[in-house]
């Protein structure tokens, strides 16, 4: 390329012309232009000289292995910790394995309460009412209350508890009203009701069979009681409903029938008139007035006055409905 043979021959390179050209062609760039170009050249290499570039590239080279080692170490430690957690969790494997079975069974009968149930951490906010139960029930029951089986039973647990309470109250009232030697057939508490049995087989506190015992009867009942104590307004309503339920258990017939059939029962001494019974009787004010009239006629003015007070409190325009005799009896009452 740049060999001497490539040089222009003498016929193309005239020495005279070359000499004359060299003599006349002496123009040079302006000094300012020289300075500008040289400054630009120095700036170009000054901004990114090779040595500086090598220095700039050196730090990533030395810290990259350290960074990679640190990342690998962190990952390894994490894996080791995860593995150790797995070993610890696998050790009590049989107990937790039963809980999902209970969950899967759903509507199937709950396992026996005497069966040891391994404590299983439940989501804290999943069952708020059972958190209330946890604060009142003992530890074993609390663990049972934490079982997921209760999640399915929880919505129906309150009626179950009310039913159980109602049965206990009915039993107590039966013991008070009926003679101990001749218990009323309708107030038989020990006889489990076939209709109520499937609804709340586990919540039957007086059930004689341990196998029919619920998974967490105490927990549910305690939760219900706790709920009743924590909500006074609701407790009154629930108490009234429970009283009515007790009365219904004691007299399963309908309210009018009870009112009409109460004439026969009026001959027997009875317990104090309850608000629940009054609510039930208030469904038919006329029948209730007839019942009160019969009490008054039978000379049982105390009971008649008590029911009149309830009648006055529960029935709208009660005074206008009352016969004059009963109204005067009520007005005379203290």
């Amino acid at each position: 390329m740049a060999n001497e043979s490539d040089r222009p021959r003498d016929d193309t390179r005239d020495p005279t012309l070359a000499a004359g050209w060299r003599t006349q062609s002496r123009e040079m760039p302006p000094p300012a232009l020289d300075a500008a170009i040289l400054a630009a050249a120095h700036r170009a290499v000054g901004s990114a000289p090779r040595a500086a570039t090598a220095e700039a590239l050196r730090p990533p080279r030395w810290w990259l292995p350290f960074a990679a080692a640190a990342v690998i170490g962190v990952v390894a430690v994490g894996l080791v910790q995860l593995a150790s957690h797995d070993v610890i969790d696998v050790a009590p494997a049989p107990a937790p394995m039963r809980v999902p079975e209970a969950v899967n069974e759903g509507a199937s009968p709950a396992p026996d309460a005497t069966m040891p149930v391994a404590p299983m951490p439940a989501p804290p906010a999943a069952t708020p009412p059972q958190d209330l139960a946890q604060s009142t029930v003992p530890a074993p029951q609390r663990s049972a209350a934490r079982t997921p089986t209760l999640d399915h039973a929880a919505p129906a647990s309150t009626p179950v508890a009310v039913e159980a309470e109602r049965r206990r109250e009915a039993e107590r009232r039966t013991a008070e009203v009926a003679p101990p030697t001749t218990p009323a057939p309708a107030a038989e508490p020990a006889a489990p009701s076939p209709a109520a049995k499937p609804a709340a087989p586990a919540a039957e506190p007086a059930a004689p069979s341990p196998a029919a015992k619920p998974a967490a009867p105490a927990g549910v009942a305690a939760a219900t009681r706790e709920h009743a104590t924590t909500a006074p307004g609701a407790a009154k309503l629930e108490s009234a409903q429970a009283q009515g339920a007790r009365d219904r258990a004691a007299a399963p017939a309908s309210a009018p029938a009870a009112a009409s059939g109460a004439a026969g029962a009026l001959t027997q001494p009875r317990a104090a008139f309850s608000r629940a019974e009054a609510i039930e009787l208030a469904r038919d004010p006329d029948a209730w007035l007839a019942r009160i009239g019969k009490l008054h006629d039978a000379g049982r003015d105390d009971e008649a006055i008590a029911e009149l007070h309830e009648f006055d409190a529960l029935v709208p325009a009660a005074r206008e409905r009352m016969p004059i005799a009963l109204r005067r009896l009520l007005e005379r009452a203290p």
Partner: protein
Amino acid sequence: MRGPTLAGGTLDTATDDSDEALMLAYAAGDAASFDRLYARHKGGVYRYLLRHCRDAGIADELFQDVWMNAIRVRASYAPTARFTTWLYTLAHHRLVDHWRATGHARLVSIDDDDDGDTRAIVESIAASPLAEPETRAAAAELGVRLTRALAALPPEQRDAFLLQYEGGLSLAEIARVTGAGTETVKSRLRYATTKLRSALRPLRDT
């Protein structure tokens, strides 16, 4: 300035004083190498551009662009050819761009140099008023006549002449810079020399 030689396809840049070694040193960050390179070639490149443009302002602008381009692409410089070939290639391309921008697009491979126009230009140079006897004695007269005669040359011949006389390029290097064949370059140089001799002949005769 000692020219490098080809060794296995690449130039032997063992000498630290060669243009190629200086350019490599500058690409490596040695700013002083560029100073030396610039001092060696600034005049030739400037006159190459000035003779073509015939305007100092435009020549300054093009000259600065050529060197800035050399600075910018220094990292990609490879000594596969002489540095002057590379440098004048940059200058030639910048000149072509300038001509295209200003409407002078005549640098497209005109090999028919021996046309009537060229002959007329040469004859007009000989018949120039500057060839008067009273001005031949003046030393400056030579430069003026040369400049005028060079300006009257076709751009391709002028380009080849300037690359040879200002850049010191060989026929092959001129062919490489201009993208023409070696014989074409030789023809252009022959015609250019002949015309310029004709311009100088009155001075020689006196």
